[in-house]
Structure formats: structure tokens, C-alpha cells
């Protein structure tokens, strides 16, 4: 029992890293563009399928394939922003962009169904099946690799945000869009690139998700997006650091509940969300009281 709990905690923390990465993309996009990209879940699945295609048909290693899938997802993100998000303006923009993202998600899901069918597929590589022996229990290598990837990607994200001029423009846009525009920042360009970055992380997230989930279908996007939304809301919308904490907390709690109640473990996400929001409507690390409608 003790080692089972320790293993659940280890898997929860390591798996949480990947969710943190996907949630960071989501919350970054929210912070800059003030929209919720509900397509993030299906984009992760799309990233997983891209990795799958590369490894099965072109025999490119999953990790090497990231060099292709990450830029590809970046471009997809920029295109989605430019075609469907940018034209939406006006008072109803909030709800419109959310619905537009939902529609994009539906289309991607439909296309994935057409190309790959509804059967489960899984990613295969030597480091997915092997595992290391740590402190009396076994950890699959992919958990460690996935966690390392997530740490590197989040670290890179932080470097870009806090050490580059471009990162400065992003943060300026997050703080005050009008002021950013006034000092000469091309807000549209920043928004497009941010959406691209937020989408690019789904390539990494998708690869790791495809490897650790044991199998995925086009339908997996719903499960993912509901978890990711729970994480970013729990953390407080727009808080990247908060998303990391919330992601690790949620996946660990889920892994622990999973030991006794496998059927209900997903409910932990939503229950935690509901409880936190009744006590603190802005989330754990929310920046300010709910903005005016």
C-alpha cells in the first residue's frame, strides 16, 4: 500500500508536468488574447496523431519528430488565429471566440475521425515500454522523459517571457492592450504569435500524452480539455505559475483517488474546481477580482 501511494504520487507529479505545459499554453493565450481556447484539447490529440503518423509511416523517432511537429503546430495555431479569431470584435467577442474555438475543435475532431477512425491508437518506442526501478517501485521511462520535456519547454517559455524583448511585448499586452498599442506594439502580431506558441506546446503535450495514456482516439480531446480547463480555472485564469501548481496538485490527487476508486478519479478534478470556486471565485492565484462583464 505504501509503495502504491508513493508510486501514485510520483506518477502524479511527473504526469502533472505535462498537463502543466498544456495548461500553460492555454492560460498564456487567455492572458494575452482574453479568449479561452477550448480547442486546446483536440489540438493536443492532433499533436499526438502527428507524432503517430511520423513514427509509423516515416519511421521518425518520437522525440526527433518533435522537431517537425512543434513548428507544424505553431503554424496551425497562427493560421487558426488569423482566420477565425482575429476577425471577431465587438461586445460579444468573449463568447464568440469561445464558440469559434469550439467549432474549430469540432472540425479537427471530424477530420481526425475521417483520417484515423475511432479505434484507439498508441505511440510506440523503446522508452515507452521500459521502466526504471526507483525506491522500491517501477517508473516508466516515458514519465521521466515527458517530465523533462515539460520542464525544458516551460523553462524556455519563461526565458522568452522574461528575458526577451518579444516576451516583454507579450507581458505588456497582457497587462494593458490599449497602452501596449499606444507605445507601438503590434498587438495583432503579438496575439498571433502567442496563439502559435500556445498551440505549439500541444505538440509536446500530445506526444507525451499519446505515450502515457496508453491509447487515444479523436474523442480524447473532450477528456483533455475538461481537465485543462479545470486546471487553469483552479489556478486563476492567466497565471502561468499557478497553472503549474494546480496541474501537479490535480494529477497527484487523481492518481491517489485512482488507487481506491478508479471509476471516479476524474471527478476529483471537477470537485476540486467547484469547491475552490465556492470559496474563492477568482481561483487560487487569480490576478484580480472577476473583471466586469
Amino acid at each position, binding site marked *: 500500500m505504501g509503495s502504491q501511494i508513493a508510486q501514485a504520487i510520483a506518477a502524479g507529479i511527473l504526469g502533472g508536468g505535462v498537463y502543466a505545459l498544456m495548461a500553460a499554453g492555454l492560460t498564456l493565450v487567455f492572458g494575452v488574447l482574453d479568449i479561452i481556447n477550448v480547442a486546446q484539447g483536440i489540438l493536443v490529440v492532433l499533436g499526438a496523431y502527428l507524432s503517430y503518423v511520423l513514427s509509423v509511416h516515416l519511421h521518425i523517432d518520437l522525440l526527433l519528430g518533435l522537431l517537425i511537429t512543434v513548428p507544424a503546430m505553431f503554424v496551425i495555431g497562427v493560421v487558426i488565429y488569423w482566420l*477565425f479569431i482575429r476577425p471577431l470584435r465587438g461586445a*460579444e467577442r468573449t463568447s464568440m471566440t469561445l464558440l469559434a474555438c469550439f467549432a*474549430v475543435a469540432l472540425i479537427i475532431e471530424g477530420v481526425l475521425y475521417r483520417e484515423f477512425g475511432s479505434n484507439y491508437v498508441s505511440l510506440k518506442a523503446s522508452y515507452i515500454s521500459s521502466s526504471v526501478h526507483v525506491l522500491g517501485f517501477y517508473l516508466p521511462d516515458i514519465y521521466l522523459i515527458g517530465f523533462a520535456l515539460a520542464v525544458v519547454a516551460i523553462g524556455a517559455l519563461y526565458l522568452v517571457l522574461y528575458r526577451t524583448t518579444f516576451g516583454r511585448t507579450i507581458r505588456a499586452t497582457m497587462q494593458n492592450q490599449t497602452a501596449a498599442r499606444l507605445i507601438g506594439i503590434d498587438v495583432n502580431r503579438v496575439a498571433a504569435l502567442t496563439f502559435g506558441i500556445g498551440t505549439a506546446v500541444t505538440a509536446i503535450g500530445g506526444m507525451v500524452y499519446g505515450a502515457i495514456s496508453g491509447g487515444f482516439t479523436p474523442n480524447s480531446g473532450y477528456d483533455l480539455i475538461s481537465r485543462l480547463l479545470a486546471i487553469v480555472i483552479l489556478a486563476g485564469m492567466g497565471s502561468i505559475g499557478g497553472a503549474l501548481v494546480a496541474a501537479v496538485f490535480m494529477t497527484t490527487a487523481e492518481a491517489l483517488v485512482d488507487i481506491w476508486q478508479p471509476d471516479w478519479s476524474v471527478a476529483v478534478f471537477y470537485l476540486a474546481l467547484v469547491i475552490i470556486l465556492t470559496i474563492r471565485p477568482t481561483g487560487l492565484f487569480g490576478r484580480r477580482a472577476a473583471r466586469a462583464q
Partner: protein
Amino acid sequence: MPDRLTPLLRPGGALVVLAVIAVFPLVFTNPTATNFGVVTLIFVAVCSAWNLFSGFSGYLSLGHAVFYGTGAYFLVVAANDWHVSGSAVFLLLPLAGIVAAIIAVPLGLVALRVRRHTFVVITIAFFFIAQLSASNLGVTGGSSGAIVPVPGNWSPATYNNPFYYMALIIAAATVALCWQVRRSRFGLQLRAIRDDEDRAAGLGVRAMPVKLTALVISAFITGMAGALWVYFIGEAFPQFVFDPLFDLAVVLMAFFGGLGTIAGPVLGALILEPTQLWLNLQQSNEYESQILFGALFLVVILFLPRGVLPTGAEYASALRARLLRRRGDQPAVPAQADAQTQADAQAAGSAS
């Protein structure tokens, strides 16, 4: 010119539409046609009910499937446990509505504390909790589904008709209710909340009770509609009873017709639901219609953001103005055309 006519025209038009819908199953006796009719009328009711809450208050709910599914499962369980069958099952519909309304109270108390995105996301979270519960609880039969007792002795030729008229009653009552609410002080309070909740609160609107009441009314109707729907299709599986596409379809219909209007959601449901059912019949694969549905959604959002009714009226008047301007070159005509455009825009505004 239209000032004296429109107040008479509009209820008259509504009565004509109602009459046409009422005789529809007598003229088109083809079961496929009446089948489409039943589902479409259910969506008219749900869409209007959704609009009563989300369209009027501005709180976009993507979780109405929770109420729809709750009503549906209540009917399944109650009909099986109490051994109700035949037309008597229809008597359970108001009860199903009440159960959904009761569910709406705690959900509303939690969700309505937050606004905008966060509210939408919480409604989505509630939806997933409901779907998960339906798959895991014993009451619902889990993922293997549950069967509703079939009304055995109904003639196959007119089998759909009781469902059709039941759906029509619910839909017509819902539209009438929306119309009443819109004219009332309560409706005014809701729209004040939509425009600026803080200012409305400052002016003395007790926002929480008003929002919650609207949600509960909306949930009541949605629950009844869900119960009728499940009795009609005769079986209940968690993934169909709690269907994310249902939420989106309802929102799309309301947006398509015109959010916050009375006729908009009705029109949206009357146009889009048969279209979708027809597409499903044409395509052998579900994903084809899903891609089309998503594309249609994007087109509506990008090009008709305020819905067919308001945007269409604007396009029409702009076009008329341009035609008038082109026809005569004398300087007086453009001024007239502009005046006409403005009058049309006002008429469109008051219609919405």
C-alpha cells in the same frame, strides 16, 4: 407607416406559423417527416429556454445538457420504477422539469458567482460531472444504457403524433413565456444584467435571485424537453443523453437566429435542426456532418455574428439604399435613401 400595422402583424404571423406547424403531421404523414418534426419542436423549446436564460442575461451556458439529461434520466427511472406506460408517461414530464429545476439551484448558486469565461467553463465542468455520473451510477444503467417502456398499442401510422403535439405544446408555451418575460420587469432586469451587471446592481437589481430564477425556469423547460425526447427515442445512453454537441447545437441555433430575440431561436431551430437531421441521413458517416456543422458554425459566427434576423435586415436595407442611390442621380434621393435606411435599422432594432 408600419407603426400601426406591426403590433397586429406580429401576433398574427405567430398564429399563422403555429397553425401551419399544427397541421403539418396531418398533411405530411410520412414517419420520417413527423420524426424530424418532433425533434425540431423539442429543439425549438430547448433553444427558446436556453435563450431565456443565456440570451437575456448574457451568461452563456454550455451546460444545458445537464438539465436535458437529468430530465431524460428521471423519466427513464420513474417510468420503469413506477410502471408507467402509454400516454400516462406524459404526466411525468412536469415532474422531470421540476427535478431539473431543483438540480439547477445548487449549480446556479456556484456558477453564477463568476462571470464571462469562467462561468462558461464552469458550466462545461458541470456537464462533464453529469456525464461521468451517468456512466458510473447504477441508477442510469451505466454505459450499457437503459430502456424506456414502449407505448405498445399505439398505431404505427400515427405513432409520432402524440409526441409531436406534446412537443408543440411545450414549444409554444415556452415561446409565449419568453415573450411575456421580455415584456416584464423581470426581463428588463435580466437585460440590465446583460448590459452591465455592476451598474444594474447599483440601480437596485438583486442580480443573484434574478439570474437564478431565469436559470431555474430555463432548466425546468429543458428538463421537460429532455424527458419527452428520451421517451420518443426509447433508450438512454450516457454519451447521447449528455452530449457536448447538444449544447453547441442549441447555442448555434440561438446565435444563428439572433441571440436575445424571441423569434431568433425559434427560426434557428426550425432551419438548422431539420438541416442537421437531413445531413445525418445523407451521410453514412457521422464525422462528415460534424465537419459541416463546425464549418457552418464558423460561417455564422464570422459573417452573421448577431444572427440571421438582425444582420439580414441590415444587409437588406443597405442593399436597398444602394439601389435607390444608383437609380436616381438627383441629390435629393440619397438623403431619402438614408432616411429609409435609418427607419429600417430602427425597425430591425425594435424587432430584435
